Structures are given as C-alpha cells and as structure tokens.
C-alpha cells in the first residue's frame, strides 16, 4: 500500500465485516512528540483473545477466516518499519480498537495520502454506519460525524454523489 489512507480503507473493511454500527477513525499528527497515530475503533463483533494473537500472522490467519488476512500484517509491518508499533484490543461482543503508531519524521513512514477520498468511499458505501472522523494535526482539530451530516441533509441520502463530493472537499479544506 502506497498510502496510510489506503490502510485505513482496508482496516475499516474489517470493522464493516464485523457488523459494526459505529466506526471511529482518528488520525493524529503530533510533530512535537514525533508521533503519527492512526486509530480505528468499532463496535463490531470483536475477537477472542486467541484470535487477537493470531491476526498479525498472515499465514495462520489468511485461510482460516475471511475476516483477516494480509491487511493487518501489512499495516503492522509498515508501522514497525517506521519505528512504531501496532496495538489491537478486542473484546468479543464489544468491538475492536486498532492503533498504528509511527515516528512522524521517520523516512520510512508512508504519507497519509487521500484520506478525504477514503472517507467519502467508506461513507458512500456504508450509509447505515455512523462514521466519526477526527483529525488532529498539531494544534488543529477537525472532526466529522456522519450523524451531523444526516441531520443537515434532512432526508437526502448521504450517498448521493454530490454529497460525497462535498464531504471530500470539506475534509480536504480542513486538513490542508
């Protein structure tokens, strides 16, 4: 994967498959502490402790279940290569939180990429899931809650192409 945004698209797919109704996606860029962190939080079906141990291993997991495979190992590799780590916390029936931390200034940290495009794809394809997106960049803090968008739209479907385009532009405007 060329961009971290594509990893987010991929990881969020796991949450969707897990039947999540709420998915939180947080991006934190903190140059002061040299931290770049991505967090995906869902209220899906969660995993057993044994499964949490196994998801980071592509060979054990890729063929035992469709829920995991190369996605998580790739992100873990990417994080570890950039002086960071991957952390997964999960509780069966409660949900899963995945956190990937990178050294902000590490030469091997991929760029974030088109996160606005990724969010608009996720929202457009899953209009029934509530997405809460938060992006902190040093002192800046931007958040978007699809519930607020739905309230604003008063009945217009959130997955209308023009609405999605608007969401994409709005995110881009704020994280420049």
């Amino acid at each position, binding site marked *: 994967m060329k961009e971290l945004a594509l990893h987010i698209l991929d990881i969020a797919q796991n949450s969707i498959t897990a039947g999540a109704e709420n998915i939180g996606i947080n991006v934190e860029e903190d140059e002061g502490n040299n931290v770049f962190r991505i967090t995906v939080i869902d209220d899906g079906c969660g995993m057993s402790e044994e499964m949490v141990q196994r998801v980071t291993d592509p060979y054990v997991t890729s063929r035992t279940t469709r829920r995991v495979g190369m996605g998580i190992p790739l992100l873990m590799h990417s994080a570890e290569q950039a002086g960071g780590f991957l952390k997964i916390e999960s509780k069966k029936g409660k949900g899963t939180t995945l956190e990937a931390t990178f050294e902000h200034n590490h030469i091997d940290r991929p760029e974030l990429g088109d996160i606005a495009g990724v969010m608009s794809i996720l929202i457009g394809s899953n209009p029934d899931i509530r997405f809460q997106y938060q992006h902190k960049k040093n002192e800046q803090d931007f958040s978007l809650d699809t519930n607020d968008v739905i309230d604003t739209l008063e009945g217009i479907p959130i997955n209308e192409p023009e609405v999605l385009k*608007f969401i994409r532009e709005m995110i881009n*405007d704020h994280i420049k």
Partner: protein
Amino acid sequence: MTKIKSLADLKKMKDNLQSKIALREKSDSPEGRVIIKVAMATCGIASGSKEVMEYLVDELDKRNIDAIVTQTGCMGYCYAEPTIEVALPGQEPVVYGYVDTKRADEIIEKYIRNQELVEGIIPMNYQTIEKDKEGGKA
C-alpha cells in the same frame, strides 16, 4: 483563499439536490438502476480499486447514468484485481477483472450504455456447465 466548507454550506446545497433527486425518481424506477460492486479487500485496494471506484462514481454522475456504486469484499479473483461486478437491471451480474480507469470508461460506454461485452470478463463457467447438464443440452 477560498472559503473553508462547513456543514452550513451543505445546507445551502439541499434544495438543489432535492430537485435533482425528484427529477431522477420521476424518470425511472429503482429497479432500473445499474448496480456496480467494486471489490475492496486488501488485494483490491493494493491494486488501485480506490481510483477505479472514484472514477466510476464521478463519471456515472457526470454522464447521467443512474447507478449505485458500492464496495464489496474479495471475490476470490485476487490475481485480476481491481475487479468490479456490474449488474444491469434484470440481468445476471458480470465480473470484470484488471479494471483501470480506461477499462472502466469502456465498460460505461459499451457495456452499460449499449450492452456490448467488453474485454476482461471473468467467466463463471461452472454455472453454464451445470445448466447444460440439467437441460440435457450439448
């Protein structure tokens, strides 16, 4: 510098959108919609399915084709990613592999508009064999 967009701007777009949707709903029924599923598992994303999906959403809207573009998981054709499944109203879905924006354009113009098949179809031949057996043909 242009103004930063906020939800208040979305509110202003609402009336415009509403009339556009009303117009579309009058012209055809929901069964008349084309449904496109873009395979977006790790394999698809790594091969560029995001660009293909964005292209499809934008172009179908621009060309006034009433379609739903959505994501799906891995269809098992990881070698041929990006793959998309196109279901024209009332027809069996067709899966296309190795789809880039150029082929996506071809699929819109030839297959969706004129129902001409385009290169890159992943055949579901096991279905035909079964059907032939049952029907006692060939």
